[in-house]
Every structure is written in C-alpha cells, then in structure tokens.
C-alpha cells in the first residue's frame, strides 16, 4: 500500500503529474456520484469538483513526512496525497479495501504514511490538530511542517482564531490553506463574513496572508511551497486563501439552486483541469490528443478501481469492537 502511494505521490513532480491527478480526482468523483445514484453510498458525500487544483497543489508542495489535515470534502486531497482510487472509493462504499477498512466512510479518509492525518467532519476541527503536529515538529526538531486545509465557513469557527493565534505566538511550522469556494453549505460568503478576502485576517495575527488563484495548480503549488519553506526556516505560519468554486452542491442531496444564474458557467470557464491542459499544450509538453488519451486511460482505470472496490468484502462484524482502545 505504502509503496504504491509513494509512487503516486512522486508522480506529481512529473510534467504531466498534476494534470493526471486532477483528471483522476474528477473521474473518481463523477464515479462516486454514479455509485450514489445507484444506491451504493450510504449517508452523504461531498464532492470537490472544481477544487482539484488546491488539493493537487498542496500535495505537490508538501513533503511525504509533512502533516495534512483536511475536511470532509477531502476525496481530492486524499487522492492527491497518494491514496489510490480503490482505497478512496472502497472507503466511501464501506469495504475492507477502503483506506480505513470501512470504519471511517466518505468524511473520514486517512493515510498517515503519505501525510493525510486525516479528514475531519466537524467544521474547523483540523486546524488545532495541524497546529499540534507543528508543535510536535518544533519539540522533536523533525523538520516536519503541517498544513491545515479548511473551508471559508471554517474561518468563522472559534478554533480558527485560537489556531492562528497560537501558531503565530509560537512561530509554529504550519500553513493554513483556506479553500474559499464562496459557500458554506447553502449560505453565500457575503452573508456570513464581513471581509471579502479572508487572507486579510492574517494581519490580526501578524502573519503573512495571501490570496491565491485556486484554479491554477501551478500558482497553488508555488504559494504553498513558499509558505512551507518559510515555516521550515522558523519563519512561522502563513494564511493562504485559495479562491475556488465547487461545481456541485454542498453534498449529494443539494442541487445548489441558491447560486445566482450564470455563476457556475463563469467558474466552469476557469476550470483547473482545462487551465493546466492549456499550459501543457502551450508549453509544448503535450498535445491535446495526448491529453485526451490520458483522460480516457484514467477514466478506464477509475472504472476498474470502482468495480474492484464494490467487489471487495464488507468488514467482519468483529471489526466493530477492536479499535476502541489499544
């Protein structure tokens, strides 16, 4: 498991790597929607389509040993960090091949060997945890950095304030990555948040705060890399605000009808996969035909992974009791 995950992580450093991974995330989530419609997914699930560049940029910038905490909208982050499509889909359909053996589910993906520690279903909960990992790094002088990925809605949770404040006074090696997708559930950000750039809040903690184009994987990678470098050089935390958008509703049951007409179309014109494809084609790295072939290969792989996940066994009932205490 670990070997394959590491290999997948290393692929992000290849010229086509970020494009491929974003295409894979898109394909996996489209498949999850299908599985949902077919009744294979219980509960809820939160798609991140449209936000792939943030997940891939974070993973491309982070070291394998760095610690990432993430949200329930975390399928993309898990795949970006190196988990396989089968492990992610397997967890979402509650099978033994899932990354948590079916005990976690869609909102609780985990992979400590590649830095996913893990995804959190309580809004904002991952921020103090990332700060704690940064503290452990400072205590053990491990050179590890931590990254907390969270939504715009989480920026109004008390834990956000406590975390940024504490990380700032102790100059901890942590990067706060806010995925500002303009909505917290069905509420538009203007109704919940008085500032238009959440990055402005960094000033209140005397730390750097930057607005980043979250649809451009290269921009995300560069911004996160720079913040990580500063963190590792004892320069303390950074708040990065990724301007992005989720194409789907908040969760499976939400059609997103609260969004103004035309908004989705406008963001679809800034699709992260299309932007990266354009860069690869313009730079002469690949042709449109080659990229189309890559996308169809990935789609076939994802179909196979989903079939394998569905065919895998359900957890044994005994699993229910053995993980409560050590």
């Amino acid at each position: 498991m670990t070997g394959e995950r590491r290999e997948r992580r290393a692929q992000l450093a290849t010229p086509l790597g970020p494009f491929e991974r974003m295409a894979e995330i898109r394909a996996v989530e489209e498949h999850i929607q299908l599985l949902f419609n077919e009744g294979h997914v219980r509960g809820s699930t939160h798609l991140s389509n449209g936000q792939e560049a943030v997940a891939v940029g974070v993973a491309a910038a982070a070291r394998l040993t760095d610690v990432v905490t993430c949200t329930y909208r975390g399928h993309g982050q898990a795949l970006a960090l190196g988990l396989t499509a089968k492990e992610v889909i397997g967890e979402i359909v509650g099978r033994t091949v899932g990354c948590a053996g079916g005990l976690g589910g869609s909102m609780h993906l985990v992979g400590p060997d590649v830095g996913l520690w893990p995804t959190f279903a309580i809004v904002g909960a991952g921020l103090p945890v990332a700060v704690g990992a940064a503290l452990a790094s400072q205590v053990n002088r491990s050179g590890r950095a931590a990254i907390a990925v969270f939504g715009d809605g989480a920026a109004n949770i008390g834990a956000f304030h406590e975390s940024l404040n504490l990380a700032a006074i102790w100059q901890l090696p942590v990067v706060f990555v806010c995925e500002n997708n303009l909505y917290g559930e069905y509420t538009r950000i203007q109704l919940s948040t008085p500032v238009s750039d959440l990055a402005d809040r960094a000033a209140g903690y005397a730390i750097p705060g930057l607005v980043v184009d979250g649809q451009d994987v290269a921009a995300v990678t560069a911004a996160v890399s720079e913040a990580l470098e500063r963190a590792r050089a004892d320069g303390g935390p950074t708040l990065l605000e990724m301007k992005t958008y989720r194409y789907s509703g908040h969760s499976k049951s939400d059609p997103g009808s609260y969004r103004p007409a035309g908004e989705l179309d406008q963001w679809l014109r800034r699709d992260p996969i299309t932007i990266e494809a354009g860069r690869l084609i313009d730079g002469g790295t690949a042709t449109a035909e080659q990229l189309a072939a890559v996308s169809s290969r990935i789609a076939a792989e994802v179909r196979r992974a989903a079939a394998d996940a569905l065919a895998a066994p359900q957890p044994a009932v005994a699993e229910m009791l053995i993980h409560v205490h050590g």
Partner: protein
Amino acid sequence: MADVITYREAVSEGIAREMRRDPSVVCLGEDIGAAGGVFKTTAGLFAEFGPDRIKDTPISEQAIVGMAMGAAMTGVRPVAEIMFSDFLACCWDYLANEIPKMRYMTGGQVKVPLVVRTANGGGLGFGAQHSQSVENWALAVPGLKVVAPATPADVIGLLAAAIRSDDPVLFFEHKGLFASKGETAPDGHLVPLGQAAVARAGSDVTIVALASTVPLALAAADELAEGGVAAEVVDLRCLVPLDMATVLASVGKTSRLLIVEENPYQGGWGGTVASVVADEGFELLDAPIRRVAAECVPLPFADVLEDQVIPTTAKVVAALRSLLAY
C-alpha cells in the same frame, strides 16, 4: 514511615517522574508555567523542565486540546491541563468527537496518546460554573479512558499509567482533595488503569466510591464501625476501564450496595454500576441498590446550599443505615 505529601504535590510529582523518564512528554495549559498553575499542581515543573516542555498557552481551550491531539498523533505525549473541568465544555468537540474516535475511525492507524488533566468537583464555594463533577460527561463517550484518583499515591501511580497509555485519558483531579495528605509513592509506582482498590475491608455492606467520595465513604464506615457494622469501601479509581469484577466480588461478600458519587443522580456513573450489578449480580443482593449522588440542580453558591446538593458523610451514613435496616 513513608514520606507524606499532599494530593496537590502528588500531581506535579507524578508528572515530573514521567517527564524525567520520557523526553516526549510535554505539558500545555493556561498559567501552568512559572506560575505553577492556578491550583499549583504544576509547581516546580517549569523550573526543572523549562519553557520548551512546560508550555503556557493563551486562553484557548479548543486549541489546547486540539493541539494536544495533533501532537499526540505525531510523536509527542502531551499532558494538557484544562483549568476547571467545567471548561471541558469549551473543547468538548475534541473530547467527544475527535480524540476518542480517531483510533476507531482510522481502523487503528492513528493513536492519540494524550492526557487531559482537569480540576473537578465542588465543595469549595466556587459556584455553578467552577464546581461541577463532570466525570459522567466523559463516561458518555466511548473511546476515552476516565481516571479519578482519591489519594496522593494513586495520583502518582495513575498519572504514570495514563501518560504511558497509548489511549487518550481524561484525568480528573478533585479540587476538594488538593490539600489532603497521604503517603507518597515509591519510585516507579504505577497503578494500572481499570483496577479498583478495596480502601477498607468489611463484610456487611459495600460502598462504591470515586475521588472525593472515597474519604466520605471511609468516614461513614468509621462511624458505623462504632455500632459494629463492617462496611467495605471500594475505590473505583477509574470509570473507564470500569473494574466491575472487584465490585461484584465485594457485593458477593456483603449482599448490600451503596454507590456514592458527586456527579448528578441523573446520568451519573452510579447508574452504570447499578445496572451491571442488577444484571450480573442480582442474586447476590439482599436489598435494593442505593445511590447517594448530587441533586439534579446547578451547584448553588452558599455553603449551606452546596452541602445540600453534594454528598456528605451524614448523607452516606443515613443511606447506609436505611440500607442495613432493609
């Protein structure tokens, strides 16, 4: 004769012993550093271990416990202090949702070896928001271990076990016991979690007690001994794991059970003890199980009222007499 120390001193002694043997133990909390804590339970630690391991935090309960979680997951053994147990409500997300579920939801991949220490309980006139006995809150959450020592030696021995445990432990220090004295513990003293102690042997009635109610039970037993009644006092020491074998063995001897608890009757831990005895030890009993618990009211301030609400020796004696007369 062994040295005598206070319960309060035993806390810092217990922490210091573990910090000397394990450099990964780090303490976090408000005013725990040079000030030695508001209850002086960390006195001397800052002088011995310095600011890198005895960390004064801002007033940020979520960040203290959430950060302890992240640090515990990634190589540190944090001992976090929440000043008054009432304030656990401010970080309850971490204690109810995050910390106790992490090992489980990840199928055992992520461990959270931390201790949250807190000053619990009433009897000192601190009013309704600084006096509660909330050990039953913790009991309601599968995945936590719950410890509440009654003597200085147990403070040291249970702290050793709690800090070395790979599971999260909520460690309740009783405010009313801080000034109490007892024998100190020999070097290397360790009390395994989940082993009750028979604090006084007897054959006529069993009193099950915890933390502050242990001395009440012992005082009541002394009073009854004058009339020839031999009460056995079982000090549970831990609510999770709960040593029901010791309770059932005692009830097997005495056939009568009184439970004395400081948390409210409604939802108090005595209900769980009574339920197990009713289920597994029904035929051992010659009388109904009785409970002396706190009244189901917020704790009033005035001394005369506070005594009405929480257990007292007089209430325990009265309950014992009625039980023996049944």
